[in-house]
């Protein structure tokens, strides 16, 4: 483990009854990196996030975040679940500051930070809106802002764009990259979509079907900032092919 390692998993495993959701897994994540996890449905991706966030206790292994053992603890990562989970009775601002409210009082600093995020990332006009007035993409932005506003270095994003149409999705991907670059966070990103994984990431982890384990770990050295051109470059296609190949090889076994 070197200095730039943010997160370090050693032999982390999890079974549900007779189902092995995660077979012993080792994983190191570098501070500031964007890492995607792809894998077939039910291979244990969400289980991995639940273990990392402290919602589930692993059967075995150690998890070290910024040098601290975090097994069994909560409140140390920003976790955005598949659904946006905005609460309808709080405004956009109220939703972004929900994390602070859940820990105690919303301070003027919390509000200022939230307002700053919102204004910077295209939500400034909607601060006073209720979620019901927002489009799907907007809602996801608010949900991500809420995750950011908790000020945790590590963000776990579980298929955040899964429900969006292709057009919105691409806008959101670029938007996410901008946020990530500006805020210098570390992102673990689950997706079904191989294009999305390669487009966004520094690293793509491919997981096998049950029992879940990492079968491939690809570096993505495509230049940043990434644009539409990235999507049609030969290097992109090559990486994508490799990920797809891995996925299908695993599926054929």
């Amino acid at each position, binding site marked *: 483990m070197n200095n730039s390692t943010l997160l370090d998993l050693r032999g982390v495993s999890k079974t549900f009854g007779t189902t092995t959701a995660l077979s012993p897994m080792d994983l190191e994540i570098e501070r500031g990196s964007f890492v995607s996890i792809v894998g077939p449905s039910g291979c244990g991706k969400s289980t991995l996030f639940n273990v990392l966030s402290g919602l589930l206790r692993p059967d075995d292994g150690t998890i070290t975040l910024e040098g601290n053992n975090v097994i069994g603890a909560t409140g140390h*990562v920003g976790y955005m679940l598949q659904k946006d989970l905005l609460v309808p009775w709080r405004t956009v601002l109220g939703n972004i500051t929900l994390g602070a409210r859940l820990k105690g009082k919303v301070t003027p600093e919390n509000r200022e930070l939230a307002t700053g995020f919102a204004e910077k990332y295209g939500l400034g006009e909607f601060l006073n809106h209720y979620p019901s007035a927002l489009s799907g993409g907007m809602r996801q932005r608010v949900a991500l802002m809420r995750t950011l506003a908790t000020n945790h270095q590590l963000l776990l994003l579980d298929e955040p764009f899964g429900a969006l149409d292709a057009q919105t999705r691409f806008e959101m991907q670029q938007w996410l990259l901008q946020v990530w670059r500006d805020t210098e966070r570390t992102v673990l990103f689950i997706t079904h979509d191989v294009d999305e994984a390669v487009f966004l990431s520094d690293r793509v982890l491919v997981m096998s079907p049950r029992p879940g384990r990492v079968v491939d770990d690809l570096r993505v050295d495509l230049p940043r900032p990434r644009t539409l051109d990235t999507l049609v470059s030969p290097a992109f296609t090559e990486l994508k092919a490799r990920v797809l190949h891995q996925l299908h090889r695993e599926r054929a076994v």
Partner: protein
Amino acid sequence: MTKKKLLVNIFGPILSVVVLISIWQSIVVWGHIASYIAPKPLDAVRSVTSNWSTLAPLTWWTIKETVYGYLAGALLGAFLGVILSKIPLMQRVLYPLLILTQAIPIIALAPPLVMILGFGVMPKVVIVAWIVFFPVTVSVLDGLNHVDKDLLTLAKVFGANPLRRFVVLEMPAAVTQLFSGLKIGATYAVTGAIIGELAASSGSSLALYQRSASGALDAAGVYGTTLIMTAIGIVWFLLVVGVEFLATPWQRRSTARRWRRGAKPVLPNN
């Protein structure tokens, strides 16, 4: 709300009431219905206004019984809903008991209540509360049991303690349900008060006034008191709807009112 919608919302109900009264009037007039069977609408109103000095204190009592009983029932109902939802054992122990309370005819409740509490306001308050608490409990329980599980998971991820989770997420999430229970309760409240008055009154009461009017074949008096009872019920229901309107702005507005906590004035962006 647009102006047109506003007009429809205000004049719709007025129109339907006017139509109803016209139908009532025509049936009485053209059907040659004797005044001791059913009065003309105006006669019913006149019976109220000309006897108002007698009716006013009775109406005031009925309002008091309704309001006190309703508030007590709503508080008790919400409290029980929370207890039931938070303590699973209670759900098994208490729930059958609560259903039992509703299976007991109110009539059977009255005499012991009168023995314990006398003939004043209290037994009526208890009867109203008895009727009102149940739909509130059921709706709160339902609301709390159906809070999105993922939302609770999220609270855990944020590291919230159970009390904060309850106050910040579960309570507001159950508010819509709570109001549906409160509205059902509001429609029953006056009925409860009237049943209570029939079951036990000292001196006079709106219910007794109506009984006497009925016995005297004073149909205008009977319908007139019905109008008063109905008016109390409608006004109370509308008050509850009004509170809901103010308490749940997100259900009909796209933005919060400016003065709401956490809101910030929207600046024109350029």
